[in-house]
């Protein structure tokens, strides 16, 4: 068995002391691997990432139960400043650039965890992964396209030399070709930098192509897990997330049955 970098043991997350979002989530992320977290809207994927990165706190959320182990140390309910300095960086959903800063200034904010150290080489490295944004290094981020912004925020995270990168829906609202490009880069980052990646995605097909391992969440619980290959072959995943019929061909609307098929894991 490989070395585990991050481990969630049965965590519960409550917002504003009353709204329970996660109800006992356990998962393990092996070092230098891509782990994908799938599930429908409101399943608790983003909350799981925020529990790890410490960003629950500003939103009045808290891990009430369970432990989050990172490199053998417990990090639940720590402040984002502490957690980012341990090498965990989350790329937020919806991109969230600094609109009134230029591309290059945006990237420089990524050096906040190691303020005062040289950063020129890192800029070059980020531009090597994302040549598209180098051309626009002097323009305001607010005027860049969605694809450029997604590359920008991922590059910004890379500037921090993360050991564990949490990506929240990198494909959101992007054209299929751009999505393919982004996913290719995610895999390259994982292979060349050895960065461990947790990938939250709606686009299950793309996610399972690059991930080594996958978890499926529903209603604040993990309902299924397995290697990416196993999940791709699972009939329920195929039907509910990949839009295939049991026979393997793309599902046709003519065959849609008039009743809801029960998911087997519920």
């Amino acid at each position: 068995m490989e070395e585990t970098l991050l481990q969630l043991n049965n965590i519960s997350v409550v917002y504003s002391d009353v709204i329970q979002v996660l109800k006992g989530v356990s998962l393990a992320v092996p070092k230098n691997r891509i782990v994908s977290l799938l599930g429908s809207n409101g399943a608790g994927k983003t909350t799981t990432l925020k529990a790890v990165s410490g960003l629950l706190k500003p939103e009045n959320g808290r891990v009430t139960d369970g432990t989050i182990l990172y490199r053998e140390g417990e990090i639940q309910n720590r402040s984002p400043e502490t957690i980012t300095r341990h090498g965990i960086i989350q790329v937020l959903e919806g991109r969230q650039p600094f609109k009134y800063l230029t591309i290059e200034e945006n990237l420089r904010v990524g050096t906040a965890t190691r303020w005062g150290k040289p950063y020129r080489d890192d800029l070059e490295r980020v531009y090597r992964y994302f040549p598209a944004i180098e051309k626009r290094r002097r323009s305001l981020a607010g005027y860049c396209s969605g694809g450029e912004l997604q590359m920008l925020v991922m590059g910004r995270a890379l500037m921090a030399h993360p050991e564990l990168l949490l990506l929240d829906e990198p494909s959101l609202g992007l054209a299929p070709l751009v999505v393919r490009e982004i996913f290719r880069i995610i895999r390259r980052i994982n292979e060349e930098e050895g960065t461990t990646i947790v990938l939250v995605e709606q686009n299950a097909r793309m996610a399972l192509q690059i991930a080594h391992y996958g978890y499926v969440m529903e209603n604040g619980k993990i309902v299924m897990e397995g290697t990416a290959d196993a999940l791709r072959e699972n009939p329920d995943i195929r039907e509910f997330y990949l839009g295939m019929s049991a026979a393997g061909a793309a599902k046709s609307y003519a065959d849609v049955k008039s009743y809801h098929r029960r998911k087997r894991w519920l």
Partner: protein
Amino acid sequence: MDFFVQLLVGGLSVGFLYGLSAMGFVMIFKSSSVLNFAHGELLAIGAYFFLALAAWAKLPIPLVFLLAIGGCFLFGLMIERIFLRPLIGEPLIFVIMLTVGLAAMFKGLILLIWGGNLYTYPDFLPKALAIRFGVVSVPPVYGAALLIGTLFLILFGLFFKFSSQGIYMRSVADNQRAALSLGVNVKRVFALSWAIAALVAGMSGIVLGIINGVNVHNLSAIGLKVFPVVILGGLDSIGGAIIGGIIIGLLETFTGGYLSTSLRDVVPYIVLVLILLIKPYGLFGLKEIERV
């Protein structure tokens, strides 16, 4: 014509000082959305620091200047640490009311220590700073104000554009959640913005003290003028604060010179009302970049 030039230089230099202190106000607002009602008192504190060191301790003037603005910087850090930090995460209105309370407290403290008298500094400015146009001569203090104003504008411009800490401060003003996710130390950014605000306010307090004499009521009333200045320039624009300051300074001096001295303190507030009616975001207020 001579009179006009004299008013112009006077208005410009006072305007620079207004702009400088308004810049501090805008900085606090941009980074933490707090309206600082104690800004006038920060001006007064700078002026009294300078007074205490120059007139009573009788230290050499350059040293006094450095110590006074250094003291203001530390004072700003202290205010943030003691009063503002415990309220992070509380509703903004509490924090704004707290600054109203701070204003009353600082004013009371100054009155307790120095009383309400009008003090003047010893005359120390070199005569070389006096500006001469033919027969018109503008007192050296206005030259000093222009010089200091420009110097600090350039310094802060460079700081925000190129230094890492300046970029972190702008990132927090831009998108606090994203800044947190990258590990920007948001508390340090808040503390720094208070410290820099106290520094620039204190510095314009010192120079205004040289021009008008040092009195806590006068100085805190000047602090209130940051409101017309920032409303005119746009609440979230540092460049707007400077330009707003210059416009208000010129308006004031020209009204005082050509119309009547009793009107000069009213004009900024008339402008405030007009601006709110016509251009509520101010001349340079940010219109949200909308790109989805």
